[in-house]
Every structure is written in C-alpha cells, then in structure tokens.
C-alpha cells in the first residue's frame, strides 16, 4: 500500500509545487525516487518527532501541503500533542502517512505496534482518519488527502497486501461493499481485509463484506442504507477491541437505537508480550480467517 500512496504523491508533485514530503528517518528504498525527483521538497527531519510535526505545521502555514511518512508510534504517539495542537487545532493541510498498522511489525515488540492508533486519532477533531484495506483503496486515500485541505491520517500496513477491490472505487469517503450477503455484515478496516477475503467461499452469500476506509468521519446514513436486511454486525480490526471501529459502531447502535446485534473482533486491550509473527498474532488474538469464519457461522446459527 505504501508504494501506491507514494506513487500517487509523486504523480501529483510534478504539477503541484506546493507538495512537500517529510520523513522521520524512515522510508529507505521507498522514498528514494521522490527525494531524487524533488530534492527541494523533501526533508528527512531525523529522529526528532516533536520537531518533525511542528516544523511541518510551520511549512503548511506558509502554503505547503505537507505529507509526513513514519512508523505510526513515531508519527502519532511520541508527538501526539504536536499533532493535536499544531496540526489539528490549527486545521492545517498536513497528511500523516503511518506505516506498521496493528501488529504488522510483529514480533518487533509493543513499542513498534499500533494497536491503539484509531482510538487516539478519534480524539482529534478536524482529523480525517483513513485505513485502506488494499492498494486500490490506498491509492484513493492518497488522492483524497492530496485534494483535501484538512488534516488527514492514513493508516497502512506496509507492502504486499492482496488486492480486494475488483472494481473502481467511486467514493473513498463511503463504506465499500466488497461482496453482497443477506444476514450478517462484516465491517472492517485495513489490511485485515486479506484474512476476510479467504473466508468468502466458506460463508457463501450469507455475509456482506464491507470495508470502511474512512473511519472518521463515517457516513452513517450511507452505512445504514447498505445494511438493509442485516441482523448481525461483526467488526474486525487489527487494533484493540475497545477504542477502534468496533467501539465507533457500538456507539452508533446505542445512539440511534438500532436493532443490530454486534460482535467485535480485535486485539484484547493489553500489552503484548507474545512472540509471534503477524499471522501468529492474528490467530492468537482471534482475528485470523478461522476466527472470522467461526464468528460468522455462530451469528448465523444463533438466530
């Protein structure tokens, strides 16, 4: 996904001289071409995250449209207050491109996981939060950010995610129906979509699969429209169970008194000490294709 995003930014940068790319010492092999093509609009601001964000806000105040590339904890956690005060409070056109969503980097250790980033990003007014599921969505998210005057956070895994979308995406701001189904709906965001796609044959047409690339704000009217006839919602995310998409949907159901049953699949809210790779972690925390398949089947039989 990161390649499709950087490619899009590069493409726009040829005509739009206001685009500026900043990294916090990440992007070896990924940003080389951008750096070569636009040396005057590229900076490595090193391992100094607070300065990186505030400095970017300053650049934006002079008319630049700034993209910042870094690993999520060093883009959103270490410098949360800078993102809050300098970018979001001031409503500046700065896009944060965060890599290593969820436990992408397992088993690097909890310092490098981003399992609470949606929870944090949700606290920031003015911030558009995007979590693309595949390179097709990622490209659209980059386009959205390039056209957007507001602060944007794009959460991606890294590279090599399978393509989920067969068709062109019309509007990235809306929930995306990946496949139809008539009883249960699986709502997800991000690269966990890869797990969901492998269970499609097993659950036939019973589960409607919906990717939600724009997590903040969510077009709830549109979402409700595509949930006609659905009795159970299953949220799946590579993120803490509490605080992410599952919580957003749960709040919505309560707020609007909606008649949906809700199952939330996600990573238990705890510090992870287990040593497992990305797949191992997904199995361990019940967000692998097997767990998703089971959750769907359970929802079908319990009715």
């Amino acid at each position, binding site marked *: 996904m990161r390649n499709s995003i950087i490619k899009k930014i590069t493409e726009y940068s040829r005509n739009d001289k206001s685009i500026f790319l900043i990294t916090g010492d990440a992007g070896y092999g990924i940003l080389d071409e951008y750096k070569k093509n636009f040396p005057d609009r590229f900076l490595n601001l*090193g391992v100094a995250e607070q*300065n990186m964000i505030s400095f970017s*806000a300053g650049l934006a105040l002079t008319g630049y449209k700034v993209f910042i590339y870094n690993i999520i904890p060093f883009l959103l956690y270490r410098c949360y*207050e800078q993102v809050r005060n300098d970018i979001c409070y001031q409503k500046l056109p700065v896009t944060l491109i965060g890599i290593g969503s969820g436990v992408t980097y397992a088993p690097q250790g909890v310092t490098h996981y981003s399992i609470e980033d949606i929870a944090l990003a949700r606290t920031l007014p003015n911030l558009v939060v995007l979590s693309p599921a595949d390179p097709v969505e990622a490209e659209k998210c980059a386009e959205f950010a390039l056209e957007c005057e507001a602060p944007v956070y794009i959460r991606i895994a890294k590279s090599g995610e399978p393509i989920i979308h067969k068709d062109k995406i019309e509007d990235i701001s809306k929930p995306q129906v990946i496949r139809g189904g008539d009883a249960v709906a699986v709502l997800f965001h991000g690269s966990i979509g890869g797990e969901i796609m492998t269970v499609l044959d097993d659950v036939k047409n019973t589960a409607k699969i919906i990717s939600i690339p724009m997590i903040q704000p969510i077009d709830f009217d549109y979402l409700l429209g595509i949930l006609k006839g659905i009795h159970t919602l299953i949220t799946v995310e590579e993120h803490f169970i509490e605080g992410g998409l599952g919580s957003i949907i749960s709040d919505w159901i309560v707020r609007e008194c909606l008649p949906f049953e809700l199952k939330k699949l996600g990573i238990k809210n705890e510090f992870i000490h287990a040593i497992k790779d990305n797949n191992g972690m997904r199995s361990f925390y019940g967000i692998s294709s097997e767990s998703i398949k089971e959750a769907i089947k359970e929802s079908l039989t319990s009715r």
Partner: protein
Amino acid sequence: MTVSTNMRNTEKELISIAKEARKLIIEVAHRSKSAHVGSSLSCVDLLVALYFDELTINEKDWLNRDIFVLSKAHAAMALYAVLTVKGIIDKETFLNYLQNDGTLPAHLDRFSAKGIEVSAGSLGHGFNMALGMAYGYKIKQDNRRVCALIGDGESEEGSIWEGALFASKLGIDNFTAILDYNNLQGYGKPNEICSYEPVIDKWKAFGWEPYRINGHNFVEINNAFKEPNNGKPKIIIAETVKGKGVSFMENELKWHYFIVTDELREKAMQDLSRNINAE
C-alpha cells in the same frame, strides 16, 4: 553603550510605547484576574522592539509582513497589548480578554484575532512551527523574516533542542529566536532546576549565532538584530526581569501566578506613571 543610528523610532518613543503596553497589561490582568502577569511584563520591551522597530508588520502590506511567533504563549497578554497599541487588535476586543464570551484566550488561538500567527500555549511548539515557517519562506525565496520568542523555562523542552539541531543544518538564516531570560520559571530558577548555564555555549555548540544582551535596552536589542548571523540562525539571549516595570512584581516568582487586585492595580498604575515621569 553602543548607540544605534538605524532605529525606526527613537529609544524614548519605544520606552513610551512599552509603558503604554505595560499599563494595558495591568488593566486587563486586573479585569480578568489573569495569571502570568510577570511573564508578560518581562518580554514587553522585546515585543515593542520587534513590532515598532525591527520587523515590517503593516496593515497596508499585511500579506507580506514579517512573522512573529510568541512561543512562550502564556505571555499572550503582552502580545495582545502590543498588537493593540499597534492598532492591529482593537481596544474593545483587547479589554474583553478572558471575559465570558470575549474572543481572546489566555493562550494563543490563531483564529481568535488578526496578528496571532500560530496557536500556542504548550511550550516548545511555537519555536518549531516558526522554524518551519522560516524554512518555507526561505525555499520560496520569499525574503520575509521570522522571529520567535521563547522562555527560559520553555528552553528545557526537548523539542527546542530538536529544532536547534536541525535549524543550523538547514541554514535557516532568516530566523531569529529571542530568549526571554527572566530567570524565573514556574517554580524556581532555571539554573537551580537544571544545568541551564552556560546557555550561550549550548546554542553556539548547536550551530547558532548567539548574542547576549540586556532585554530592556532598546539600543542593545536593535544592535543585536543588526549583528551578522553568518548564514546561521540567530538567537538573542535577552536578560530580562520578571515583572519588569512594576516595582513590587520585579523578580518575584509569585507574579507567575498572582492576580492584580483593585488595590494592586492602583499601585501598579502609579508605579508605571511615575516611571514615565522619571524618564
């Protein structure tokens, strides 16, 4: 004392403008029961020097103005007062500082009034934003200047030193930082709390062009701005007095917090008027 010949306003005029600004600060501090009176008074002369002598900030050519960022934004009253004397903020807006349904908050909100370049309040943010602005203008070959005022307590923030490390490397020579060294932070003196000194050596080691001056002497301030920066970002370490201009507030830590009561307002105003007559 070196005499500067290229001041836009005479030293006497600047002193009188600063007195007016100080009176405005006392007035709104009294009305609003605001804290940070001492922190505001220490940097008044520096702000007056910036707005009435050094920087080009005119309503007529607003889009091309020089940029001033108040990074130690708890001294917002000082900035509001100087902008009011300058005619950029109107008096009524100013007098409604901190009042219910007024528009000016205790810390800066760039959407609140004209002339507030950045939103700030949490320390160690404005300085870095100002560096980003200076860099942005520099690479656009826009020759305007950017200045930021930081506090001595604020200089304990890691972000200040992150910015310091990068600014010199990036050759941000259209930037001047001014350190309001009033030697009293929230709960003590910087050098008693950490290894603050030698502060000039620290900035020099980070690749900056530092100058140390008396931050209440307009000629010295003017000269420091005129000094060459040798292709580096410049920092003016301005020794100041917390609470400057009001005798009972000067060098008193409590005036980081204390409020101006009716009685103290009268005393402070008398003090400021007396000082004017003395000059």
